[in-house]
């Protein structure tokens, strides 16, 4: 096993990796930007080396500098976390070239799965289901119609040069095909001067379900079950859970097998995730592979009783992983809520600022992976996610109740967060029944957003009484100042003494 590793990341994920290192007796090396100098991950690491800079480009993306620090500090391997350099094949290659170990997949797998077209072709060759559609752009009308019939309606016509929904048509049945194709081609011609189109199966009522896989250098490839990630805003996940309420044992086995097949096809090593779309008829299609540790990995850890970072380290060090067979059963149920510094009620506007007070949730079944502390400044420079709050329970109901309780308990002030929104999601009857798709937030926005009568009057009274308290204090200070015969110098001196205490 490694004696020392460098973590090329920041915030909660850097801290997450540092914790496992500490448990395994591995020395951790943190690197940090100027902005992050006071972050918890910096002082939790065994060593902390400055990268300088503010923006990602000036700091966490400077891989020559990171490699240089790795060598100087004597680290043997680099953990990239997620984001930043984690899916950069050139970086993975450079790490290996420098004689260090990249804690992740081989560069070739990152490169292959990072190319959408190549990945799709590879999946088709290896019989992993993909969304049916044309490989190449079509300009021949007869051929287009035949393809649409073969795929089966409903289908999507997409302009080859398209984007932003222009030149896109949803076609429900064959008799509507001609006019939709004309419409899409016209729009595409006008917008992009190119009327060729792709035809693709329309995935009805899609759910986003992904499988965690692990592969070591001893020929073992397993899956650790699925994560349900359908609750998304702007294609970004906000709440995840394991297992998914949609899957039964048979479907889990089939999807898990497909996930392993996908990993095998690209010669995968280490931890990875295969994302699938599942339609209302319970057909599943390969979407993409994430060649790194995912943000939402804790829910998989909670229901498997495994530490995925520990497994990553073992695999990277050439050891065998702890399990050699995919588990058939899970321990209970787990939710993860991503706490973002943003204002869901104001179109998810970022809410940077200083965390003036923080008292996170605790108690039975709660796990928090946070990157901040009281006094932390949430800057503009990086991702707005500040913490991941997880709840575990013996079943989905208990885990859900715990998740709501923990979110209500969580006290944070100074910035706005997604907490009130997350509580609404968890309280929604359809969510509680497991009946939702990736369109959930958009479809249920009237229910999820906006003020409710409950607690409105208590909030109003709190504001009035807080203002009265403030005024009382101001009056006291003013009264003391005016009535006191002491000179200004005494006041200044007294203030200085207070400050130095």
């Amino acid at each position, binding site marked *: 096993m490694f004696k020392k590793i460098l973590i090329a990341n920041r915030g909660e994920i850097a801290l997450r990796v540092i914790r496992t290192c500490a448990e395994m007796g591995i020395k951790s090396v943190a690197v940090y930007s100027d902005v992050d100098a006071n972050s918890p991950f910096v002082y939790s690491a065994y060593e902390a080396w400055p990268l300088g800079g503010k923006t990602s480009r000036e700091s966490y993306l400077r891989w020559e500098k990171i490699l240089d620090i790795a060598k100087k500090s004597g680290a043997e391997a680099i953990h990239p976390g997620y984001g930043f350099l984690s899916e950069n094949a050139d970086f993975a290659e450079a790490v290996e070239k420098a004689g260090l170990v990249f804690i992740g997949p081989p560069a070739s797998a990152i490169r292959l799965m990072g190319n959408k077209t190549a990945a799709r072709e590879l999946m088709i060759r290896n019989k992993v289901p993909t969304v049916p559609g044309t490989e190449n752009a079509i300009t021949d009308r007869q051929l287009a119609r035949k393809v649409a019939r073969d795929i089966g309606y409903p289908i999507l016509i997409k302009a080859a040069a398209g984007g932003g929904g222009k030149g896109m048509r949803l076609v429900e049945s064959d008799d509507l095909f001609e006019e939709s194709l004309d419409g899409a081609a016209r729009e595409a011609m006008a917008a992009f001067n190119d009327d060729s189109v792709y035809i693709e199966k329309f995935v009805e009522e899609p759910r986003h379900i992904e499988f965690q896989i692990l592969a070591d250098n001893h020929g073992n490839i397993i899956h650790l079950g699925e994560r349900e990630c359908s609750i998304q805003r702007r294609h970004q996940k906000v709440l995840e859970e394991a297992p998914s309420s949609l899957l039964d044992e048979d479907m889990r086995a089939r999807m898990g097998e497909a996930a392993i097949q996908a990993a095998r096809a690209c010669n995968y090593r280490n931890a990875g995730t295969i994302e699938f779309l599942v339609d209302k008829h319970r057909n599943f299609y390969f979407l993409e592979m994430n060649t790194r540790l995912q943000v939402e990995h804790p829910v998989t850890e909670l229901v498997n009783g495994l530490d995925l970072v520990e497994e990553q380290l073992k695999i990277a060090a050439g050891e065998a992983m702890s399990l050699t067979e995919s588990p058939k059963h899970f321990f209970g149920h787990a939710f993860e809520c991503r706490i973002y510094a943003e204002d869901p009620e104001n179109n998810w506007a970022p809410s940077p600022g200083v965390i003036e007070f923080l008292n996170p949730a605790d108690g039975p079944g709660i796990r928090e992976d946070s990157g901040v502390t009281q006094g932390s400044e949430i800057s503009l420079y990086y991702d*707005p996610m500040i913490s991941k709050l997880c709840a575990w329970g013996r079943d989905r109901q208990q885990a859900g109740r715990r998740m709501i309780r923990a979110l209500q308990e969580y006290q944070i002030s100074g910035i706005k967060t997604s907490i009130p929104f997350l509580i609404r999601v968890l309280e929604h009857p359809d969510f509680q029944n497991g009946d939702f798709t990736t369109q959930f937030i958009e479809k249920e926005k009237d229910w999820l957003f906006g003020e409710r009568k409950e607690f409105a009057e208590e909030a109003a009274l*709190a*504001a009035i009484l807080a203002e009265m308290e403030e005024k009382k204090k101001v009056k006291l200070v003013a009264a003391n100042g005016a009535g006191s015969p002491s000179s200004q110098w005494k006041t200044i001196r007294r203030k200085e003494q207070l400050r130095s205490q």
Partner: protein
Amino acid sequence: MKIFAETEKFKFEYTLVETEEGLRLKKGGQLLDVHIRDLGEGRYCLIKDNMPYIVNVHRTNEHYNVRIAGSHFQVMVEDERTRRVKELVRASAGARGEKTIKAPIPGLIVKTPVQAGDTVREGEPLIILEAMKMENIIKAPFECRVVALSVKEGDTVEQNKVMMKIKGIED
């Protein structure tokens, strides 16, 4: 004295009265059983009819951000006097048709598509502000002329920083 509190959807009206225990709130002629304790850092314990709530109260320029039992409210508090003063200010400011565009959030100025002197139609972008990987387009609230632009591309701005002055164009 009357005190008004308004959230986005609800309005409340109380009367402040002097009692032996100090100032108390009345609603519809009834004294309210409500107290508050300051816990510091903007945190309070509100006790209403013997039910305790932990409340976060954060003051901004115009209102209070209140978080209570996992819900969030924006509360505007006014008494009779401040309400009258505000109405007077509003009436005089409205006449000139000038408006300052302030930064709604701290951020980086990515683009300033218009310059001083330009005429802009309603809904057209005035300034593009980026924070945390997200672009925020600040649009013209009405047809207007740009009177002054006080930021440039690459600037970092604090919240509420005045970025631009515009003047409405009358038909």
